[in-house]
């Protein structure tokens, strides 16, 4: 606590003597880390937590003091082999051999460990004290003469026994005595040699010859070597500097020169007494540097250590050297270190002591400078030209130009190259592969593969075709206009660079999002730019830089346009399906974006506008504008309500045609044909068979025969591009569904059931043209089909079987009214029949079809089958009068003339089914149980 603080505290009325006032809040040093980690061994541990383990961590209780007792084999008497009683062995004969028992013999491991621990002998931290005890030191220092020996002995006896350090004790045990040197004892000669080695000649052992002889009989301890004591460095002098020495002396020079000046030069005029020492004040400070012994250094010796700040090296307001004015401390003193002594010697002849202009002598080792300290020079500010405007941008531009200039200047020597962009430069560099090939390296096995290599040949062909058609459609940019492949063309320096965009990109960007709508001028420029880019034939951008717009700015603007065109072009491909954009991109003639709209519906609803959705919008809008709601504004698509929704609404789940169409993709046999499908088929002239029939029977021929099928898309051709014939072999040749076979080959009982189901299916998808049919049909009783008594289905080779269908349109209801017509058609069909390529029924009938009626010919049977199918068809299509499409397999006259008898079947008394049954009953070829009743 400083005195000032004390005073202050006293003023405040605080008792400075109190412990509180003296309390120190200073924390010195870093506090030790908390002792959390060190475990408190004495800490209370509950019983259940206590855990007894031996030294090896085993949970075997050992030793009375470590918690337990383990004996024998797992605390049992005996060993692993069992318990064997020890046999008595007399120790009488062994008695002599027996050594005295030590306590250690009776100790166990823990006791031994404890013992070892207790044998901690020395304190390692004690200091070695070679010099002996303090008393001895004092004795050595000659204090003994102050005390008489008695008092000394008393003091020694009263004082506690001197404690030697461990090292001293060890040494003493080894025979060392205080005052001796360490090491084996020496002979006399050796000792003499050692003494000679030691520079102290005063310690030379002197002796007579007899002494010598006597001495040779003994060995002597070595001389004690004084401990080298390095002084602690507590000043700030440089290493090796001794404070009193001047520069010359410290390096060994000038010692001779200054030899004569051992005493400071005392000011003349005043005598110093013999007893007086030369004081600082008495030194002649005006002793100018005349003569070699001009100055002593005494006056500065003290200065050096204490008042370093007095040496001012240079000062601003210095006067000229040599102007001996009254200015006090003003001389300029450049330092000349003794390291370059020659320079120093050159300047100042030794022995000449310089003085400042106020008379103070220049320090040893320093010289006065010849030149005055140069003043800071101030330059006038440059004149700002009138009308100058600060423009930071200009600086950058200048820098840019300078860079380019520098670059071009560098290239001037070599072949001149135009400035390149970084990308171009990078592209011009050799790639690692190219370098490798130049060096003749073997190419790496992992070759980069094009994505096209993963495509199948078919897909590649399709892509090729697609590309070909696209390039036909798109305006082909002239090769001159096409940008060179490595990068943008080298820009004409200072000219307008028009970044190239692919016309398709530009077109897409034109239709896509317009980013500059906020700025109409920019927007118009943008669209002009895009139009220019989209139309490769146009020359001239159509607009130039704005007034006041530099070429660089204009180039940048164009680049911005190009960039935004690539950024804001609408999504394409699969992404476009997921996002609805306001404008639809035309990517090509073949790719139609948007959800796939099954053709049948677009056919049925909008026959004229089925191609493009966006084309549909416009008529719709115009229709709305004209108030022509209805056909144009209505769009009907199948929609599958969730099953649960139907349940909640109490509505039977509809058979949505999407599923039917999807089914058509897998199986070409479509029982529940929609009216749309039927309509489309109706459009097909009667000559070729309908697609869904011929597709199965005639395979690829059907497609070739029906060019009309090519127009509308359907799900079966999605993914095959435009070429519908592609892949038809795989698509069409499929095993039909099982119910097809059932329908044909199962017994008539089942047939009738199937008819009911077919009816049901059919009615649940009523014709779209009659939307007022809102009520569902009465649910048909579900009759589980009885197993056919004589079903031959298992004998059919299903893999190769190809059935044909004949619709029922001719028979059930239209039998009487259109019998003539149908007969004609049937006759046509009969004529055509042999021409059909793959009427596999013939084969199958010949081969595997069991004949149940031995009297009937194959042909008749065929016709009968056909009749049945026709009947079913008819029931399905009873809403329409499309007789023209069902032209196959006329019934022969024989069959026609059979009497019609109504045969009701159990479980099928429903009106529609009943009639179907009535018509079908008598024509069945196979016998049923009912026929025998």
């Amino acid at each position, binding site marked *: 606590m400083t005195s000032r603080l004390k005073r202050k505290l006293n003023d405040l009325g605080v008792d400075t003597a109190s412990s509180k006032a003296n309390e120190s809040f200073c924390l010195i040093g870093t506090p030790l880390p908390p002792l959390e980690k060190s475990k408190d061994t004495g800490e209370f541990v509950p019983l259940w937590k206590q855990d007894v383990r031996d030294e090896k961590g085993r949970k075997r209780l050992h030793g009375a003091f470590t918690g337990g007792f383990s004996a024998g084999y797992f605390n049992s008497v005996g060993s692993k082999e069992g318990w064997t009683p020890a046999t008595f062995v007399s120790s009488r004969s062994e008695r002599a051999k027996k050594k005295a028992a030590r306590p250690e013999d009776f100790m166990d491991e823990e006791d031994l460990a404890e013992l070892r621990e207790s044998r901690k002998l020395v304190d390692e931290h004690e200091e070695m004290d070679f010099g002996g005890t303090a008393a001895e030191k004092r004795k050595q220092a000659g204090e003994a003469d102050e005390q008489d020996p008695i008092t000394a002995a008393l003091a020694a006896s009263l004082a506690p026994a001197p404690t030697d350090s461990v090292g001293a004790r060890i040494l003493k045990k080894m025979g060392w005595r205080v005052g001796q040197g360490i090491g084996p004892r020496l002979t006399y000669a050796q000792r003499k040699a050692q003494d000679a080695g030691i520079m102290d000649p005063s310690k030379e052992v002197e002796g007579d010859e007899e002494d010598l002889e006597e001495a040779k009989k003994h060995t002597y301890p070595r001389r004690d070597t004084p401990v080298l004591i390095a002084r602690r460095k507590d000043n700030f002098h440089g290493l090796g500097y001794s404070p009193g020495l001047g520069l010359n002396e410290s390096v060994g020079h000038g010692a001779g020169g200054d030899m004569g000046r051992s005493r400071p030069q005392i000011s003349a005029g005043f005598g110093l007494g013999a007893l007086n020492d030369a004081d600082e004040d008495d030194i002649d400070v005006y002793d100018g540097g005349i003569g070699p012994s001009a100055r002593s250094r005494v006056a500065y010796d003290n200065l050096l250590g204490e008042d370093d700040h007095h040496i001012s090296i240079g000062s601003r307001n210095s006067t000229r050297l040599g102007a001996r004015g009254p200015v006090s401390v003003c001389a300029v003193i450049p330092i000349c270190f003794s390291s370059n002594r020659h320079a120093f010697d050159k300047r100042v002849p030794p022995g000449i002591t310089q003085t400042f202009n106020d008379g103070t002598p220049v320090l040893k080792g320093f010289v006065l400078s010849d030149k005055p300290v140069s003043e800071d020079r101030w330059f006038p500010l440059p004149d700002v030209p009138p009308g100058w405007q600060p423009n930071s941008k200009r600086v950058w531009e200048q820098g840019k130009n300078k860079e380019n200039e520098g670059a071009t200047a560098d290239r001037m020597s070599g072949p001149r190259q135009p400035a390149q962009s970084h990308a171009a430069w990078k592209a011009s560099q050799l790639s690692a592969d190219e370098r490798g090939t130049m060096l003749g390296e073997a190419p790496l096995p992992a070759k980069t593969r094009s994505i096209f290599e993963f495509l199948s040949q078919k897909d590649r062909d399709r892509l090729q075709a697609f590309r070909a058609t696209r390039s036909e459609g798109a305006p082909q940019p002239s090769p001159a206009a096409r940008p060179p492949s490595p990068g943008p063309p080298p820009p004409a320096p200072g000219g307008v660079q028009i970044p190239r965009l692919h016309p398709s990109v530009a077109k897409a960007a034109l239709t896509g999002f317009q980013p500059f709508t906020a700025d109409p001028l920019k927007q118009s420029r943008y669209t002009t730019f895009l139009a220019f880019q989209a139309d490769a034939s146009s020359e001239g951008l159509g607009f130039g830089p704005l007034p006041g717009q530099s070429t660089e700015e204009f180039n940048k603007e164009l680049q911005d346009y190009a960039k935004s065109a690539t950024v804001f072009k609408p999504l394409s491909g699969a992404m476009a399906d997921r996002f*609805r954009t306001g404008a639809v991109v035309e990517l090509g003639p073949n790719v139609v974006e948007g959800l796939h709209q099954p053709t049948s519906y677009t056919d049925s609803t909008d026959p004229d506008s089925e191609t493009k959705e966006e084309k549909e919008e416009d008529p*719709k*809008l115009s*229709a*709305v*504008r004209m*108030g022509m*709601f*209805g*056909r144009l*504004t*209505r*769009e*009907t*698509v*199948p*929609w*599958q*309500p*969730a099953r*649960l*929704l*139907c349940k*909640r*609404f*109490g*509505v*039977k*789940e*509809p*058979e*949505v*045609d999407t599923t039917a169409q999807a089914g058509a993709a897998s199986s070409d046999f479509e029982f529940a044909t929609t009216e749309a499908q039927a309509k489309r088929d109706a459009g097909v002239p009667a000559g070729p068979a309908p697609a869904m029939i011929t597709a199965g029977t005639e395979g690829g021929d059907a497609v070739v025969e029906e060019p009309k099928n090519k127009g509308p898309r359907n799900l079966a051709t999605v993914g095959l591009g435009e070429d519908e014939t592609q892949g038809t072999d795989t698509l069409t040749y499929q095993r039909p569904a099982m119910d097809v076979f059932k329908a044909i080959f199962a017994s008539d009982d089942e047939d009738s059931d199937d008819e009911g189901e077919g009816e049901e299916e059919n009615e*649940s*998808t*009523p014709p*779209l043209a009659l*939307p*007022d049919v*809102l009520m*569902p049909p009465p649910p048909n009783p579900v009759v589980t089909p009885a197993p056919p008594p004589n079903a031959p289905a298992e004998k059919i080779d299903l893999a190769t079987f190809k059935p044909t269908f004949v619709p029922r349109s001719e028979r059930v209801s239209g039998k009487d009214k259109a019998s003539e017509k149908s007969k004609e058609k049937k006759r046509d069909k009969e004529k055509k029949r042999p021409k059909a390529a793959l009427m596999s029924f013939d084969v199958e009938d010949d081969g595997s079809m069991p004949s149940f009626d031995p009297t009937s010919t194959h042909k008749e049977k065929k016709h009968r089958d056909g009749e049945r199918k026709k009947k079913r068809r008819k029931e399905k299509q009873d809403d329409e009068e499309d007789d023209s499409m069902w032209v196959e397999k006329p019934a022969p006259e024989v069959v026609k003339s059979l009497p019609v008898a109504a045969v009701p079947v159990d479980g099928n008394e429903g009106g529609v089914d009943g009639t179907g049954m009535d018509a079908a009953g008598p024509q069945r070829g196979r016998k049923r149980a009912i026929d025998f009743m």
Partner: protein
Amino acid sequence: MAPSRGPAATPRTLHKTLANHKGPVHVARYAKGTAKYVLSGGQDRTVKLWNPELGTEIKSYAAHGYEVLSLTVAHDNSRFASCGGDRQVFLWDVVTGQTIRRIPGHMGKIFTVEFNEDASVLASGSYDSTVRLWDLKSQNRQPIQVLDEARDAVQALHVGGSYIVTGSVDGHVRTYDLRMGELRTDFLGHPVTAIVPSQDNQTYLATTLDAHIRLMDMSTGKMLNDFQGHTSTSYRIRSCFGHGESTVVCGDENGSVWAWDLVDAAPLQPNPPPKVHERVITWIEQHPVEAGELITASADGTVKVWRTPS
């Protein structure tokens, strides 16, 4: 009034004003059955139950955190559902005033909500351009089905016996026919703000923002009649059939109630109708049973009960 002598007169005498809402009233609906009560929901985040006969507020249902935009009452009047800005459909118990269920799932504010006939399915149409159909018989958190054909917000919704009609801002009226399994889309060209089918499910009234109310044939999509004269450019406005479906009534943005003859589409007298609300009439609903009563809800914060003087 005998319907043979022409359309029933539109109720134009103010019976009661239900004015406890603070802020615009977005929806006001009659209860089912004899419709003795009126539910209204408004910007003040409450649904209020009124007795239109006495003009008193019976109950206030407050749980919404945002405005209430639509209401629907279950067939047995035991529950109602409300929706609005908080992207959840709240299903309320009428008596206790507690929400039975809160159905999250929409991504945007829900503009319209409808029960089906037996309140087993709840349909909600939202700003996220979907209609979600919620099963109220189970605790399933997922909708039964999401009708996401709309390209813009769904503003109007009607759930019929076997069909769902939605009106969207994209100008389409979509009829999801469950029985036929098909979706019939009628393009009206302007944002559809209300869809009210007629009783026979053959026609529907579509209110669009081009200030037209169109009577559309549901089966063919043909326009049967076009009612115009009112102002409707920016607000959701509902039009509905008058009693016996002989007239079409609609409130407009000026606060007047228009009425047209259904058949000849001529505005009924008075033409132009007087201004009865301060601000836009957001909802109008004809009493389902009583011939001479209708309610209008308006952005001026009132629901007014109109009657014909007897």
